[in-house]
């Protein structure tokens, strides 16, 4: 027997997007059920910050056997260290497939808070350069919104989340209500001056815009610069849904968070011609449950959201909910990453850094902003930083000798030169053959059919990656760096964890899954507001855009409910 419960709204997922949906809907008076596939999180118990190494069995070297057996994909993410490995999924329980020779590293977090616990926290607005891109060059479908539609919602979510950064007035990288910028290092400041000397206003470097508090904000303390945000912050000084949006949602008294609730699919009621609820598998008992609601917000993360839609098959929607458009699962995007250049910065021998800044620099997009590059469309930005190389005790193993002298000599740090590095994040063109489908032959531990992910970097991305390396080297050299070298780690798609698209917004129901308010064209009481909804990728870290889209959609949903239009 299925148990049925009736809610005003169900929110699937409790990460960046789900947290916002829960907060906005419950604060506007709705009774909200948040369904989270993973376990509950208690910051007091689960957030480890910069816990000293001796608190861990392997002292941050990680449990290699466990990682190779249970997390061979998740371990590729830099944040999946011994203090945060528990925030990443078990790859054996959560399988997916890819074609031979075309890897896609799908990084996932299943717990209350989702990936908002170990995300990279960089927040950059998209601009009309991005929202008009598809229309301009014909790749993908035209966004149904422009910057003016989302700008007030960027203001709204940024004011709440607290983004530290520097206002620049760049049209391609709009400013927000920033908290004080974090300081640059000596070599970053030096590079910035050299860059301006060489390129004027055309190329602009700034401190990263980051959802980490540089000052007390909305009752949350400022960052203490321990540098290990991805393990969870006891003081709640970076934005994660557990300590912000979900907390607010619970405070309304109208929100219930149900962990261990794996959503299988949405329930399409043929008689009523609409979605009436969701099918859930209890992750612990494996019991099948159903929950009913007037509206559903699907915020399960880009590919999990699309997986739920694809698995929501019915007579009216044989290809899944939204599948009648023919584009559900298509136009998967990610940003290219881990290619750029680095060099040595002369001077500043009498300076060093103190503290661990959870942030780097950002160099705003300059390609195809005014002129058209002959080799590729769209553009890229850089992230990176400038630090002094320093060796502590780690150098000791390779030194000859042992005993009291060795111990004494390892007490002092050995400072090397300052360095500067630039790593590009490149836009990915929406392409119909970068797509996900349901693999009919495979289910996960809870019996839910899994995804087959087929994605590759194509000609435009590859041309852009080559240019980004050369341009990075050019800028470092122009600023006066020595020993400049380019690099390309040949990182496959997925690992940037900026996967986007597959249930895109659009103007035409035959060309898109969602309308301008993130409603499924064929099921208007279903909203998909996470990365799945993106019609193009820009080159900016996208989470803040998901926040804004979610808050905007929630506002619209409540307005429609109040007008009895849903």
């Amino acid at each position, binding site marked *: 027997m299925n148990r049925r419960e009736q809610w005003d709204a169900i929110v699937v997922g409790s990460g960046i997007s789900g947290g916002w949906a829960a907060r906005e809907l419950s604060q506007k008076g709705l009774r909200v059920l948040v369904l989270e596939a993973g376990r509950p999180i208690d910051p007091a118990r689960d957030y480890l910050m910069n816990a000293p190494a001796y608190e861990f069995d392997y002292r941050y070297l990680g449990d290699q056997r466990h990682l190779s057996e249970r997390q061979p994909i998740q371990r590729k993410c830099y944040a999946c260290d011994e203090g945060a490995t528990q925030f990443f999924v078990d790859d054996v329980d959560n399988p997916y497939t890819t074609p031979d020779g075309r890897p896609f590293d799908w990084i996932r977090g299943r717990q209350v808070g989702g990936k908002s616990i170990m995300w990279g926290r960089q927040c950059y607005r998209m601009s009309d350069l991005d929202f008009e891109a598809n229309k301009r060059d014909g790749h993908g479908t035209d966004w149904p919104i422009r910057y003016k539609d989302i700008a007030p919602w960027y203001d709204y979510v940024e004011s709440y989340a607290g983004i530290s950064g520097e206002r620049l007035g760049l049209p391609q990288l709009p400013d927000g209500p920033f908290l004080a910028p974090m300081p640059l290092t000596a070599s970053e400041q030096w590079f910035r001056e050299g860059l301006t000397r060489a390129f004027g206003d055309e190329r602009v470097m700034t401190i990263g815009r980051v959802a980490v508090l540089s000052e007390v904000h909305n009752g949350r303390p400022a960052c203490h610069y321990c540098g290990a945000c991805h393990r969870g912050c006891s003081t709640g000084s970076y934005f994660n849904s557990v300590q912000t949006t979900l907390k607010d949602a619970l405070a309304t008294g109208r929100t219930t968070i149900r962990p261990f609730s794996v959503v299988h699919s949405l329930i399409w009621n043929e008689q009523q011609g609409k979605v009436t609820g969701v099918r859930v598998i209890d992750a612990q008992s494996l019991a099948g449950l159903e929950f009913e609601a007037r509206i559903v917000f699907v915020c399960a993360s880009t590919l999990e959201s699309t997986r739920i839609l694809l698995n929501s098959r019915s007579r009216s929607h044989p290809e899944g909910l939204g599948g009648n458009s023919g584009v559900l699962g298509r136009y998967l995007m990610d940003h290219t990453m881990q290619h750029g250049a680095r060099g040595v910065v002369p001077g*500043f021998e009498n300076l*060093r850094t103190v*503290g661990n800044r959870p942030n780097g620099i950002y160099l705003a997009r300059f390609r195809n902003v005014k002129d058209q590059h002959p080799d590729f469309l769209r553009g890229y930005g850089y992230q990176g930083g400038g630090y002094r190389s320093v060796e502590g005790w780690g150098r000791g193993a390779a030194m000859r000798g042992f005993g009291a002298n060795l111990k004494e000599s*390892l007490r002092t740090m050995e400072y090397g030169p300052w360095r500067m590095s630039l790593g590009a994040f490149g836009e990915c063109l929406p392409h119909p053959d970068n797509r996900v489908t349901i693999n009919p032959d495979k289910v996960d531990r809870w019996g839910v059919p899994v995804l087959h992910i087929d994605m590759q970097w194509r000609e435009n991305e590859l041309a852009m990656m080559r240019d980004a390396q050369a341009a990075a080297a050019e800028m470092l050299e122009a600023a006066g760096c020595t020993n400049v070298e380019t690099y390309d780690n040949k990182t496959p798609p997925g690992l940037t964890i900026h996967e986007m698209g597959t249930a895109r917004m659009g103007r035409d129901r035959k060309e898109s899954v969602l309308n301008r308010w993130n409603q499924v064209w064929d099921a208007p009481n279903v909203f998909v507001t996470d990365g799945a909804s993106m019609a193009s990728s820009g080159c900016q870290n996208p989470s803040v855009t998901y926040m804004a889209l979610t808050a905007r959609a929630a506002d619209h949903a409540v307005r429609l409910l109040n007008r009895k239009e849903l």
Partner: protein
Amino acid sequence: MNRRELIKLLGGTALATSLSSGQLLALGRDTHRQAARWRGAGFFDHHQMHTVAAAGERILPATDTPGAMAAECHRFTERIVADHYDARRQRRFVEGLVNLDQRSAARFQRLFVQLPAQQQDAILAEVESDAYQAGSNGADSFWRDLKYLTLYGYYTSEIGIEQELRTDFYPGRFDGAAPLGDPSQ
């Protein structure tokens, strides 16, 4: 530890055959008494654990701060050798420990753990020198493994972090251009 085990441990060196059975018995009894102190997770036997601890203490001895033995580096070493090393490297590590005893027996007619510090240092210096002579700057050797794990275990231990390095985990600020020599930093 009985005579057969002791002889096996010594790997059939000259020592094993040149000691009288009375001496061997005394040696064995002493080793056995030590054994209870060196009970680990089960990968090393007591004697191996004791040997790792003794060698570690010579690599990072107690000075004005405690050394590797107090920081229990041998336990960390055991964990990594047991859980991270492949079979070939595990075998090399265990053989390396046997070799410490063989060298100790050949030069000083004792097990490594029974030698005074100065003689232990002489044995370790020999091992290091041979590792470097074998090439690759000693990188791919029992010696490097032992030394690396001792250092890693020490500087990530409570003693290493709080007494030796005095690491400040929560600096409360970031300064990107702080003067190098200022002790208040």
